[in-house]
């Protein structure tokens, strides 16, 4: 998409302008006493809370726990979704056998399973992993399937005419052709991943960022609650940027991704 934007430091600063203005407004409102700290603490207070939590080590611990949970869930759910997407994309029988069932399950909000998941797994680690994996499974499954199905049939015929065997055809034609769609799935999955983790950690956990927020709520520590929210925002943004970087690397051939 070609958007007219002038080059130079101004255009680079542009995306930061609105967030910066909001933070300044927030800080000023707090300093002047318009915003009581028990409703919303000042940005400086949130930074102070971050510093305290950093020094006692609990921030890093909780962050590490949350990050590990998110990644494990993503890898487990993503791998299953990717494999089934490929299987059903490549095999008509596979699709007929599995896809209708998966489409049916997809329409159940996965968070609706929380009561059942707690009964099955208790409130341990496996319950949270299960929820995250289930959440990321569907976007990756659907987009992988869509990507494989939509590879240009003329390219597949070309590959066959040039004598590619199934393995080469898959690696050189089908997988690269499906990749843009798989990346769309990955970005959706990352959003679902954090959302699921937040819910899972606030309901039942004794560690993690979500737990940190819930524990702070009990003592009305609004600064720590806000800190947790800010951390989620940063983690989400980082995950999105990482995916964009991957897209730029692997989809450089595509004019739509060449330079964002």
């Amino acid at each position, binding site marked *: 998409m070609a958007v007219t934007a002038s080059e130079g430091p101004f255009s680079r600063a542009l995306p930061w302008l609105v967030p910066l203005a909001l933070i300044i407004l927030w800080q000023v409102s707090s300093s002047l006493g318009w915003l009581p700290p028990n409703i919303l603490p000042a940005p400086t207070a949130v930074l102070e809370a971050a510093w305290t939590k950093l020094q006692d080590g609990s921030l890093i611990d909780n962050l590490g726990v949350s990050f590990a949970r998110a990644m494990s869930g993503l890898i487990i759910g993503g791998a299953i979704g990717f494999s089934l997407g490929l299987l059903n994309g490549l095999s008509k029988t596979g699709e007929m056998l599995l896809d209708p069932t998966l489409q049916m399950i997809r329409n159940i909000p996965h968070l609706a399973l929380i009561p059942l998941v707690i009964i099955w797994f208790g409130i341990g680690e496996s319950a949270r992993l299960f929820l995250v994996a289930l959440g990321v499974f569907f976007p990756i499954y659907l987009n992988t399937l869509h990507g494989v199905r939509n590879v240009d049939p003329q390219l597949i015929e070309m590959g066959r005419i*040039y004598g*590619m065997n199934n393995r080469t055809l898959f690696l050189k034609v089908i997988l690269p*052709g499906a990749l843009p769609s798989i990346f769309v799935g990955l970005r959706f999955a990352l959003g679902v991943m954090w959302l699921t983790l937040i819910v899972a950690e606030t309901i039942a956990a004794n560690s993690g960022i979500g737990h940190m927020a819930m524990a702070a709520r009990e003592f009305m520590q609004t600064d720590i609650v806000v800190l947790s929210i800010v951390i989620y925002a940063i983690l989400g943004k980082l995950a999105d940027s990482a995916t964009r970087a991957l897209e730029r690397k692997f989809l450089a*051939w*595509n*004019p739509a991704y060449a330079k964002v």
Partner: protein
Amino acid sequence: MSSQPTGGSRVSLKDVKKAFGSNVVLQGIDLEIPAGQFVSIVGKSGCGKSTLLRLMIGLDTVTSGVLDAPALKEQAARIVFQEPRLLPWASVKDNVAVGLGEGQSGQAADQQAAAILEEVGLKGREGLWPSQLSGGMRQRVALARALVSQPTLLALDEPLGALDALTRIDMQALLEGVWQDLGFTALMVTHDVGEAVALGDRVILIDHGQVVLDLAVDLPRPRKRGTPEFAALEGQILDKLFGDDPRAREAH
């Protein structure tokens, strides 16, 4: 470094018939195509010309009759389609390497690819992606991919049909030059009678699944379109195509 002549191979069809179910597409086709000849195949849409081409390079099998083409047994037949069908995620060089087939890599393969890219005028563009090339350039890559394995039989299915008029003239000259350099047998389906006469040693007209005209073109190359001889041959083909309907001829 340039490409060595590969030579051509003959194709012979005796009473060939092709039917899809009860639908007879080609019937009673008898053709002898000597090695190295450039054959243009023309005809209206749906006359069976593309099917004939697919038969001759082994993409389809005959229903009855005999098709004898040594290039098919030697896996030395290649095709260029109207669309370049390049892999968008592979560089020009990697797209050409697809033409070398399985397990062909290393220095010899690289040299072959480089030579053929030079032959089609793409030297210096090895690292570009197809999206960075013009339509004519993409078709050159497709031609290089087809020729890199040194085929003796090359089928061209309306290879210039999707290009603009100026690029077409350019590509016709390129095609003629490459064919003269390498010496393969060329079978080109086209809907452009002028193009058929400009490039073919011989023009074959297909109508309702049969060969209705088999015309030798004995003009010196490169051919000039404006000459009376050229126009006479074109007229002869168009007459056969449209009969005596002057309006249809005018439209063409």
